[in-house]
């Protein structure tokens, strides 16, 4: 029995190390590529540690002023991503939070069909929306606009938030709001002063997921943006990657920077992310 346990324990550690390496190595490789010299990148077999640390690419991304520079494009696109994801998160939390409250707490006609339609909008392939929207936005002059991206993203982030938050809200006891109502609070007052403080973790959790979803979005940004006025970092990286001679060093530097916000958020708020994902039973 003891022998068997020892073998099992060893297997456990071997697997644990394999998982740790498997999780970290590809990302670490991207980082190594981003600081390697041009010679390192063209070495075969590849050098696992760079011969010298070359931070020029990062410097270029942060400082380049030349508008034809990829580094410059990465910086502007990263800014666009931040603005769009931030605005979507805010809009979706306010609009989605209110709607989730009414779906979780209030009785009204059409509640279930509306809720299911929300879920469907979130699940539906985006391509079913984009052909007519592209023609419409072109007419309205809304292509290459960050506001247009915010609107588009909100249309699938809000349903997601409603779906997840509704599940979360339903788990908060009703009795506090009832007590507040007895004390003469109006519905809005009870919502604001009593319910909202208790629902805060739900807002944090879904807010984080909304931000990550918007940061990750690619398809709509690809279709609706073609210049740096609104192009997001994912589109900028994909576009640069499509060129004939790919500078993997630069792409990797951009990739590392584009990964930092979501990775830091995932590490810092893991508890909330898990809560958000499991309370609605929905993905990413």
């Amino acid at each position, binding site marked *: 029995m003891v022998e068997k346990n020892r073998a099992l*324990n060893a297997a*456990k550690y071997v*697997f*644990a190390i394999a998982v*740790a390496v*498997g*999780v*970290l190595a*590809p*990302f670490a490789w*991207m980082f190594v590529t981003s600081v390697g010299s041009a010679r390192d990148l063209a070495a*075969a077999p*590849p050098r696992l540690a760079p011969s010298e640390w070359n931070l020029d690419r990062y410097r270029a991304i942060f400082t380049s002023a030349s508008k034809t520079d990829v580094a410059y494009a990465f910086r502007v696109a990263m800014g666009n991503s931040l603005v769009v994801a931030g605005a979507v998160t805010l809009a979706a939390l306010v*609009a989605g939070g*209110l*709607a989730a409250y*009414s*779906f979780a707490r*209030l*009785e*009204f006609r059409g509640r279930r069909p*509306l809720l299911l339609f929300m*879920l*469907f909008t979130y*699940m*539906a*392939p985006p*391509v*079913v*929306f984009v*052909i*007519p*929207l592209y023609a*419409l936005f072109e007419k309205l002059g809304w292509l290459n606009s960050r506001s247009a991206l915010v*609107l*588009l993203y*909100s*249309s699938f982030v*809000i349903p997601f938030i409603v779906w997840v938050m509704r599940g979360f809200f339903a788990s908060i006891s009703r009795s506090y709001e009832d007590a507040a109502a007895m004390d003469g609070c109006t519905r809005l007052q009870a*919502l604001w002063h009593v319910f909202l403080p208790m629902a805060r973790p739900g807002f944090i959790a879904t807010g984080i997921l909304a931000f*990550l979803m918007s*940061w990750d979005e*690619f*398809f709509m940004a*690809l*279709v609706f943006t073609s210049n740096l006025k609104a192009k997001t970092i*994912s589109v900028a*990286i*994909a576009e640069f*990657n499509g060129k004939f001679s790919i500078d*993997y060093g630069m792409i990797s530097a951009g990739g590392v920077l584009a*990964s930092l916000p*979501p990775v830091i958020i*995932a*590490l810092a708020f*893991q508890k909330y*992310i*898990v809560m958000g994902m*499991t309370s609605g039973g929905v*993905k990413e």
Partner: protein
Amino acid sequence: MHRRNSEGAFALAISSPALLIVFGVVLFPLATTLAYSFMNMELISADRGSFAGLRNYAEVLGSEAFWAALGRTAWFTAASTLIETVLGLFIALLLNESFAGVRFLRTIVLIPWAIPTIVNGSLWKWIYNGEYGVMNAIMLKLGLIAEYRSWLSDPFAAMNLVVVADAWKMTPLAAIFFLAALQSVNKATYEAAVVDGAGAVRRFFSLTLPYLAPTILIVLLMRTVEKFKAFDIFYMITKGGPANGTKVLMYETYLSAFTNLQYSKAATYSYLFVIIIAGLTALYVRALDKSEASNG
């Protein structure tokens, strides 16, 4: 009755921003795309805009390209979902144990999931690179290959390498889901099973697996829907090639809409897509309802 009415009005009032944004954006294109799928909208056609009945559907469903794309999508979906679920389950079991370093492991395991899809694609494309890629170097060193290969120029290999790239990013999600379920397990039942002399394997099959079954079902359905819609990673790594080997449904639809400007065909693909997704969503909702019912 009065209370009921005012409640409904209040509900509508506070939901209106969300409903306006969502329905405002979504309804018009949903209806228009549906209309396109029954019309002749091809740019080069002389009677553009005419009613086509079910002709578009007949054409698409009768084309080899559609079934080939559906087959590739099904392969991608099945392979990556299977890897994610099985590997995710093992990782969850590991993370549910207590040993030195498990907290660290639980923290870092979400990193791949957090990396943006496009960055993940570019990262793996670089790893798979035929001249400088690290995969060639490792496989050569292990003696698995005799010389460097350009992996992405073989259609079937390319598809499976996209599966690997996708599974790397998404396995943590499945693992975290299963871990959350495992942590709410009733410990006493397990201890009783240990006392009764049930071995680890037996405990896994007779206790853990049945307990996790509803979660597994939900993860499977949820991932299936997502995989069916996969586009970004294909756009990034293979662009549907080589020799159409990775042209999945979404990619085919994207090409007909934005490269070939065949709006009717794209619209028809989209709605066939919608039918598949709606079916999967219905299954998903039923699974959720069931697991809610069984959890109390």
